[in-house]
C-alpha cells in the first residue's frame, strides 16, 4: 500500500523539515535541561552513592549530605555493638575555608574519615595514595577545584582554616551540589581544622552490614538505640539528599517549567505545521472521501505523519543532546541522560505529536467531500 503519509512528508520537504526541527528542538531542550538537572542532582548524592555504606546515621532532621549537623562521636560504639553491623565509622562533613595563593578565601566541602581505603571514597583517584593521608596534615583535592581554586599539583600546599595542608593526591568527579569542590582529609585532621566546634562530635556514622543482614531490621534496631538520630538506608538517604534541592529550592520548579515550555514549543510547532499541511492537502483528503475513504483513512494518514515526525524528531534531538554532552563536559557541566529517561521522552514525544494532530483530526472530520468539484 502506498504510504501516503510518508510520501506527503517526503514530497513537502521544507514543511517536513520544519516539523521535524520543531520536534527535535523540543526534545533537545528537554534532554539538555533535564540532563543538566540530573547531572546536578547526581552531585547532590554522589558521595552517598559511591561510599560503601549500607546505612547512614545522621543527626535528627539533617536535610541533605552537605548540610550536616554534629552529634556525639561516641555513639559509634553503640552502632558497632548492634547485631548485623560489620563495621561502623564516624564521618565528618564540613565546609571549611581554603586560602588561595593570592590571599582570597574559598569554601570547600571536606570529608573526614579515619581510613578512606575501607569505604571506597574518593572513588576515582587521579594521582596519589589514599593510605598516605594518615601520615600527616595531608589532603586529596578534587580536580574540579581548579575551576575555582586555580591550578594546583600534588606536592603543593594550601592553607585550610589558617593551617598549611599539603596536597598529596587528586581525585575526579567529587563535586557537591553547591559546586563546592570536595577534599578528603583524615577524621582527626578535620576535627582539628574545625577549630574546636567539632571536638568529640561527628556528623555521620557510616555503617556496613554483615553479609545477609536485613538492612531494614538493623535500621529499626539502630533507631531504638539512637533515639535522637535518624537512620537511613543508602537509597533513602540518597533520595532525601536529592529531593531537598528539588523541593526546597526553585531549581526543581525551574526545571519543570523549562520542560513544560519545551513541550509547549514542540506541540505548537507540530500542531501548526501539521495543521497547515492538512489545509494544503484538504482537497486530497476530500478526494480520499469522494473515492469512498472514511475519516479513519484520513486519521491514519495524519496519525502516521505525526508518528514519523515524532520518531525522526526524537532521534535528531537525542543525537543533538549526545553531541552536546562532551562539549558541556569541557565546561564541567554533567549531562546525564539515562535510557529510562530517554524512553520516557520518546513516549512523551509520540503522545505530544499525536495530540498535536488532534487539531487536524477535527478539521478533516468536517471535510465536505463536495469540495472536490470546486476549482
Amino acid at each position: 500500500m502506498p504510504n501516503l503519509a510518508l510520501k506527503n512528508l517526503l514530497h513537502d520537504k521544507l514543511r517536513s523539515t520544519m516539523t521535524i526541527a520543531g520536534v527535535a528542538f523540543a526534545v533537545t531542550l528537554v534532554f539538555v535541561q533535564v540532563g543538566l538537572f540530573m547531572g546536578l542532582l547526581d552531585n547532590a548524592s554522589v558521595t552517598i552513592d559511591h561510599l560503601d555504606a549500607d546505612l547512614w546515621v545522621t543527626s535528627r532532621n539533617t536535610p541533605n549530605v552537605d548540610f550536616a549537623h554534629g552529634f556525639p562521636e561516641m555513639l559509634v560504639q553503640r552502632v558497632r555493638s548492634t547485631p548485623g553491623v560489620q563495621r561502623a565509622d564516624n564521618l565528618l562533613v564540613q565546609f571549611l575555608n581554603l586560602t588561595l595563593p593570592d590571599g582570597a578565601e574559598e569554601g570547600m566541602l571536606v570529608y573526614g574519615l579515619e581510613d578512606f581505603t575501607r569505604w571506597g571514597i574518593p572513588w576515582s583517584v587521579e594521582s596519589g595514595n589514599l593510605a598516605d593521608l594518615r601520615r600527616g596534615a595531608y589532603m586529596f583535592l578534587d580536580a574540579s577545584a581548579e575551576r575555582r581554586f586555580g591550578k594546583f599539583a600534588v606536592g603543593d600546599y594550601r592553607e585550610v582554616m589558617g593551617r598549611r595542608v599539603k596536597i598529596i593526591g587528586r581525585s575526579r568527579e567529587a563535586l557537591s551540589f553547591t559546586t563546592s569542590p570536595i577534599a578528603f582529609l583524615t577524621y582527626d585532621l578535620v576535627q582539628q581544622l574545625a577549630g574546636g566546634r567539632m571536638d568529640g562530635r561527628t556528623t555521620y556514622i557510616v555503617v556496613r552490614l554483615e553479609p545477609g543482614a536485613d538492612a531494614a531490621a538493623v535500621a529499626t534496631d539502630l533507631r531504638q538505640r539512637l533515639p535522637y538520630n535518624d537512620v537511613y538506608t543508602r537509597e533513602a538517604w540518597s533520595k532525601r539528599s536529592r529531593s531537598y534541592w528539588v523541593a526546597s529550592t526553585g531549581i526543581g520548579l525551574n526545571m519543570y517549567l523549562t520542560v513544560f515550555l519545551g513541550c509547549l514549543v514542540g506541540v505548537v510547532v507540530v500542531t501548526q505545521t501539521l495543521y497547515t499541511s492538512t489545509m494544503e492537502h484538504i482537497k486530497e483528503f476530500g478526494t480520499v472521501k469522494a473515492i469512498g475513504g472514511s475519516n479513519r483513512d484520513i486519521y491514519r494518514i495524519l496519525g502516521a505523519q505525526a508518528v514519523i515526525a515524532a520518531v525522526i524528531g526524537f532521534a535528531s534531538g537525542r543525537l543533538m543532546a549526545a553531541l552536546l554532552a562532551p562539549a558541556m563536559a569541557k565546561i564541567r557541566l554533567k549531562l546525564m541522560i539515562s535510557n529510562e529517561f530517554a524512553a520516557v521522552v520518546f513516549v512523551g514525544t509520540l503522545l505530544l505529536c499525536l495530540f498535536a494532530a488532534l487539531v487536524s483530526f477535527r478539521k478533516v472530520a468536517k471535510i465536505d467531500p463536495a469540495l472536490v468539484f470546486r476549482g
Partner: protein
Amino acid sequence: MPSSAPAPATATAERTVLEATGITKVFREGSEEVSVLNGVDLRLDAGEIVALEGPSGSGKTTFLSILGCILTPTSGRVVVDGEEVDAARPNRLPAIRKRSIGFIFQQYNLFPALTALENVEYALNIKGVRGKAAKDQAEEALVAVDLVDRRHFLPRDLSGGQKQRVAIARALAGRPSVLLADEPTANLDSAVGTQILGLFRDLAKSERRGLLIVTHDPNVRTIADRVVRIRDGRIVDPDVPLASARPDAQPNATARLIQEIAS
C-alpha cells in the same frame, strides 16, 4: 411535476446502473432557503454515455454530488447499482461510493506525492483491494488508459491529458458500474480533449459502464448517447439520442485490449 428525462426507447436492453427520481435539494443560507434542484429525474444504463449540460449555477454539480452519493437530496429517490440510497443513513454513502462509483474531476485531483501507479493503487486500497492484487489491477487500469509506460511518473511530470488518463484509471479502479465525470475536458486542449473523450467512449462501451459527463464542452456530444440539459434546477430539454445511432460507436483497439486483459 418534476422535469424528467427518460431514456430513449432505443437503449432499453441494458441494465440500469443509476436512477434518480424527483430529486430536490434545498440549501439553507441563514434564514433563507435556496432551492437548487426542483424535481429532477435521470436514468443511466450500463454502457450508456449521458452528457449533462447547463449554464453555471444551474445545479449540475449539486446534481452530480447527489448522484455520486456525496450529498443527500432533500427529497427524491436515488438508486445506485440496485441499492437505494437512504438519506437517513449517511454513514452508508462512503460504502456505496467505494463499491459502485468512480469520479473523474476537472482538476484531476491526483495525489501529488504518489506516482501514477500509486494513485490508482491507493484508490484500490481504499476500496479494500490490497497487496499484489492492487498493484496488478492498478497496472491493468493504466494499460487501459494507455499510460503504463508512465506509471512511475509523479503527476507534476505528466501533461494535462496524461493526468486525466491517470484520473480515469483511478476512477476505473475497483470496476465501478457508474462513472461520473465533472468537466473532464475543461483543462485540456481540443486535441487532447478529443483523445480523452475517445477513451471515455471506449471504456464505457467495452466495459458496459454507465458514464455521466457534466460539461460545457460541445465535443462531448460526439460520444454521448443522450444529452440532458439542466437550467435553474430543472431538466429543460427532452434528450436526444446521439452517438448510439452512429456507426463509429464501436470498440476500438484500446477497448479490445481491455477486453483481452479482462478475459
